[in-house]
């Protein structure tokens, strides 16, 4: 997929880094200028935690979900949900950029296409990380989720891997789609299975075999498992496997995203 060509040798590395910084910085500036985007992104997971968490939690016997109360059990799943929905839809912005000529301003820049893609992906991931940090603070204060220094760092690592993977997936879909409606349709087909079949909302140990198989092949399940392992000490697959799958997922999505971005049609 990535072909070697002699132009790669002529890469002006400092210039590529400045370009990367510029594209990342733009995403961040735009994100900060629209507080509604941040507020909207926080409200939804909070509603899940408060309403869904309390509602379903009321009929679950204490200890039934591996010793934790249901809200705490749900918390890592909601972090993953925030990443999934927020980051995938970040790809929508590339379609909106296509509709005006803003994307051309970037595409005509004397930069490698991969640099442009990474700048975008990092920008989207940074937006997502800001949302997650706010949720983690709220979780620690209001939902009794405990973080140690180590669990916090590991949470960041797991979240960042997932952010990079899902943002890249969103950008890949955005690069090939031409209309926001098409993007919405495709991403719904992708995002809901990834979310519901990840164990974000329920433990995966007692599922019927057919469902267990589907959950096992869903890469997002390993992010959920890793987070639960780090935050609550509950694991199903083991951290090593969780990290291996998460890293592989991120790498594959970055490669796919770069490939799609290079073939973007204006």
């Amino acid at each position: 997929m990535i072909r070697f060509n002699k132009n790669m040798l002529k890469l002006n590395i400092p210039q590529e880094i400045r370009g990367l910084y510029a594209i990342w910085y733009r995403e961040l500036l735009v994100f900060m200028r629209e507080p509604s985007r941040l507020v909207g992104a926080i409200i939804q997971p909070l509603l899940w935690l408060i309403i869904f968490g309390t509602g379903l939690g009321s009929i679950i016997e204490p200890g039934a979900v591996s010793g934790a109360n249901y809200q705490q059990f749900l918390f890592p799943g909601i972090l993953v949900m925030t990443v999934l929905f927020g980051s995938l839809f970040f790809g929508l912005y590339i379609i909106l950029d296509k509709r005006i000529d803003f994307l051309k301003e970037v595409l005509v820049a004397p930069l490698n296409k991969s640099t442009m893609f990474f700048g975008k992906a990092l920008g989207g991931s940074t937006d997502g990380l800001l949302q997650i940090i706010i949720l983690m603070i709220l979780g620690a204060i209001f939902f009794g989720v405990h973080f140690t220094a180590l669990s916090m760092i590991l949470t960041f690592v797991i979240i960042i891997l997932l952010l990079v993977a899902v943002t890249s997936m969103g950008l890949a879909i955005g690069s090939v789609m031409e209309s926001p409606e098409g993007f919405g349709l495709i991403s719904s087909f992708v995002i809901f299975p990834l979310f519901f079949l990840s164990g974000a909302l329920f433990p995966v140990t007692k599922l019927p075999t057919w469902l267990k198989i589907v959950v096992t092949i869903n890469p997002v399940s390993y992010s959920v498992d890793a987070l639960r392992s780090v935050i609550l000490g509950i694991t199903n697959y083991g951290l090593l496997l969780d990290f291996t799958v998460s890293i592989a997922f991120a790498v594959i999505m970055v490669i796919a995203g770069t490939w799609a971005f290079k073939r973007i049609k204006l």
Partner: protein
Amino acid sequence: MSLIEIKNLTKKFEAFTAVDDLSLEINEGEIFGLLGPNGAGKTTTLSILATLLPPTTGSALVNGFDVVKHPTQVRRSIGFVFQDPSSDDLLTGRENLYLHALMYGVKDSEIDKKIDEGLKLVDLTDKQNIRMRKYSGGMRRRLELARGFLHSPKILFLDEPTLGLDPQARENLWVYIKKLSTENKITIILTTHYMEEADKLCDRIAIIDHGKIIALDTPTDFKKSLGGDLVAIKTKNPELSEIEKMDYVRQVRYKDGLLSLTVNDAGIHLQKILEKVGDAENVELHPPTLHDVFLKLTGKHIRDDSGEGEGGWMTRSMNSGNR
């Protein structure tokens, strides 16, 4: 020296041929205009030169670099002001210029200086810290013009630079484009479907229709090719035979008291013509316009509207996937 060399360039979108075997050389330092109706292939040609689209066949060299083989070097040589808005609404004018400077490789030590110069050039220094959402259409175009030039490219592409602007803002932008060209060593290639714009700005013009160049000349020579100025005189009994004998008079028509003449250098010869006309009630002298040229070459009027017929930029960009 020619800075751009296009040879037998063809671009097809499935069955539709947007650019049809086009060959062209553009010289260093000139303002070159691609004039033609909407859909003539102007924007497609610029997009190929800017490496945004690959050609179907043929080749193009920009600043000596092949657009297919050395796209990065080509992009280092050019600046582009796009047809549709391409700056970020939520950012200020200065922030837009700053991001451009970073992406387009302006040296760190020169960024502030270049941005200040650019803002001054287009008279937006006092608006630099306002978000672009609050800019008028004309201000936005001016900022985008400064941005296209910010990294001192050898070649600047302007795609329909004044599309959608009101007449006053349009003439205002022409002044800035002229200023940019005279004060700097830069080659400018612009597309337009406004006759007046091509006439006022360009050193040479290629008239393009259905992806082909149908004529290429300076605005002055284009107009000369029509065979002189148009003179209309209201008069009762002119000495038609005497007038027809004059060798600078090319065409004579007399109908219902109105004498229509085509005259070489009418300004110089008008006096002698009037001597043979007798009592003239009213004299009108009208130099030929590019409009007349276009009409003669293509047999049709160019749509000299502001693009509303196509539904504005939103509709056009929605359809752009099929372009």
